[in-house]
């Protein structure tokens, strides 16, 4: 009897104890609602990368990984609820894939000491790691994106944009307004005329905006859209016969979802990207063998290689590499969120490292530091081939204009620090 009681007590203690052996990577996903088409491939890519690590390598540094998915529906309140519901699980890093959720989480993660990675979205000035100790936005941010688009146009125009007319069509939200200041600064520097045209959420009806573009005949249109706004804008641009090769979307306006509904009319449309595309990488063979063929994929396996799947896959890879870095720095396999932050702040993504992972040239080479949480700020331009139904990368990595962007980052982050009584300093390791 005593033996049985002792066994039951041990079992009860074991059951009640938290599972310490997992490295927890929460995924604040949106597989339902108006933005599901963008949320699903990203969430699939994110989950599949960690499944691959578990199945092929036995996790990271001998510790299995665990992805906790929480559905946000791209709703800010639900995103915050998901954060609160999952942070107690030992979550190492959050990637909410929403600028709205990011803004709400920034004060929370700073208080809780849990890293937040907003890759190509969120608060741009979080690149200043001395103010935002726990927020990272490498490899590139919105302002880098605006600058990369202008640099591409400079390349196309022999380095001179003076007298050119550029319109920014943007989602009328904090996200959509992000590039305006940068584009205005760059307009002063390069002499182009900038017009900003707002589109209200969700962007299902854009007739007024595109009639304005038809009247004003800008030389180029840059788009900062998400969800249905992208598809409608591309269709409306085609309707007014705006030259597609002069229409450039940010990286959130450049997935297959955005161009396929417009059919042939979308041919030639361009967008930015912060990583490479397709499946021509050694790691995808492993993914097929260990995850897809084994029936362990997060989704139906039909999103592999799409732009947003690759983005989720890339985001997971960067998280896993930061976790490895944290394990190396602290000499412990079971890392805490604070250790994870140290790993992220010391992350160095070299070409050799990416090649070693089976992802050569998948993203830009960059290094993160205490001061710079924004990475290299590089991006590429891709162009849609409607007949082949695929994106083609048409440039090498383009550097953003740090001369213009860095002062803006410092100005904004220092204003944030002053408002919130933060003394800029590196986080304690």
């Amino acid at each position, binding site marked *: 009897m005593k033996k049985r009681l002792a066994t039951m007590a041990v079992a009860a203690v074991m059951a009640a104890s938290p599972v310490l052996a997992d490295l927890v990577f929460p995924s604040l996903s949106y597989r*339902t609602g*108006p933005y*599901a088409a963008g949320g699903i491939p990203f969430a699939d890519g994110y989950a599949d990368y960690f499944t691959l690590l578990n199945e092929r390598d036995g996790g990271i540094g001998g510790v299995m990984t665990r992805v906790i998915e929480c559905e946000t529906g791209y709703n800010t309140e639900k995103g915050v609820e998901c954060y609160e519901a999952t942070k107690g699980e030992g979550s190492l890093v959050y990637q909410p894939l929403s600028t709205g959720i990011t803004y709400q989480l920034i004060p929370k993660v700073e208080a809780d000491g849990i890293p937040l990675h907003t890759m190509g979205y969120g608060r741009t000035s979080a690149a200043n790691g001395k103010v935002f100790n726990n927020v990272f936005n490498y490899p590139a941010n919105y302002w880098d994106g605006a600058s990369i688009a202008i640099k591409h146009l400079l390349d196309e125009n022999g380095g001179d944009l003076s007298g050119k007319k550029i319109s920014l069509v943007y989602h009328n939200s904090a996200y959509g307004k992000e590039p305006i200041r940068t584009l205005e600064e760059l307009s002063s520097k390069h002499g182009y005329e900038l017009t900003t045209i707002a589109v209200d959420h*969700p962007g299902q*009806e854009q007739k*007024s905006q595109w009639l304005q573009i038809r009247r004003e005949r800008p030389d180029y249109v840059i788009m900062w859209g998400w969800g249905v706004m992208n598809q409608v804008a591309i*269709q409306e641009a085609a309707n007014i*016969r705006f030259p597609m090769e002069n229409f450039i979307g940010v990286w959130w306006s450049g997935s297959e979802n955005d161009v396929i509904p417009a059919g042939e009319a979308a041919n030639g449309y361009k967008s930015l990207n912060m990583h490479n595309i397709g499946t021509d990488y050694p790691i995808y063979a492993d993914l097929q063998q260990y995850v897809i063929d084994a029936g362990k994929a997060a989704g139906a396996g039909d999103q592999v290689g799409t732009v947003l799947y690759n983005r989720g896959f890339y985001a997971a890879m960067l998280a896993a590499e930061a976790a490895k870095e944290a394990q190396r720095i602290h000499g412990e396999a079971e890392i805490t969120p604070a250790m994870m932050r140290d790993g992220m702040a010391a992350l160095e993504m070299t070409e050799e490292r990416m090649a070693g992972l089976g992802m050569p040239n998948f993203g830009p080479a960059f290094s993160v530091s205490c001061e710079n949480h924004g990475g290299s700020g590089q991006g590429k331009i891709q162009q849609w081939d409607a007949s082949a139904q695929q994106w083609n990368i048409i440039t090498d990595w383009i550097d953003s204009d740090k001369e213009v962007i860095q002062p803006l980052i410092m100005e904004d982050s220092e204003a944030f620090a002053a408002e919130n009584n933060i003394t800029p300093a590196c986080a304690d390791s």
Partner: protein
Amino acid sequence: MTDQFLFGVEVVLNGLMAGVLYALVALGFVLIFKASGIFNYAQGVMALFAALTLVGIMEGQVPFAHLINAIFGTEIHHFGWHVPALAAILLTMVLMVFFAWAVNHFVMRHLVNQEPIILFMATIGLAYFLEGVGDLMWGSEIKKLDVGLPQGASFWIEENTAFLGSENFFGFFIDQLDIVATLVAAVLVVALVAFAQYTKQGRAMRAVADDHQAALSVGISLNFIWVLVWSLAGFVALVAGIMWGAKSGVQFSLSLIALKALPVLMLGGFTSIPGAIVGGLIIGVGEKLFEFTIGPMIGGATENWFAYVLALLFLVFRPQGLFGEKIIERV
């Protein structure tokens, strides 16, 4: 004529066309409200569901494929055939009639004589249920909808109006899809009005709308009429889904087009079919003209809120809407 004036005319023309598209959504609300006093929150989702079903049938997609594959470990996605657009529209309509029957059989008939707010709440539940079923049945990815409707500027109109202005005026831009939508809406309204006025079922529908109990007392089947009305609303939802889906692809944000119908209903009245059209036209022209004239001065993106402001202004003077029935309660 000055270019600015011509641009204004172009904005008005496009506003009228946009208004027709809003009215297409509003019509579904009117039909159900007129016959049953229910504000159908699910109308936008019905448009989404109808469009999803249409594309699914056209592409030979296996319904509930993800669910089937997850349960049975199979790998089925498509039947391997493509169904012509017209046949797919008919099959979708059959499904919408079945949906109408199911709504009545499982929900509405159990709520007869309940407060309007209860019925409204039921349609909220219905909207979420239908959205979930649509996702499970056809998946969440964006689908291209091609039923052969023309899209893009009408060259003929552009070329034949370009002479009106200077070299900076390029002729009037009119989207061919909008022209088709206008014609379809006109036919739809005439057909619906004729149906309501000149057919036995239409008269029965109006009788139910006037007084449920009186209609029942003369032998009109409430169940039949409600199935009929929900079927008609399903058909209107399908038409709206096709027109809007052709613009943006079929995706879950399609359900948000209902937001565009609300100011139209406030303005045109909840009980008038012509009111939905006129309301749509006023909202369409009003919001586009405001955006054209005032928008640039205040940062643009005025259309969403201005439509509601316009509708509220009308409500102040005509609470029942332009064509709504005046509510007189004698005590």
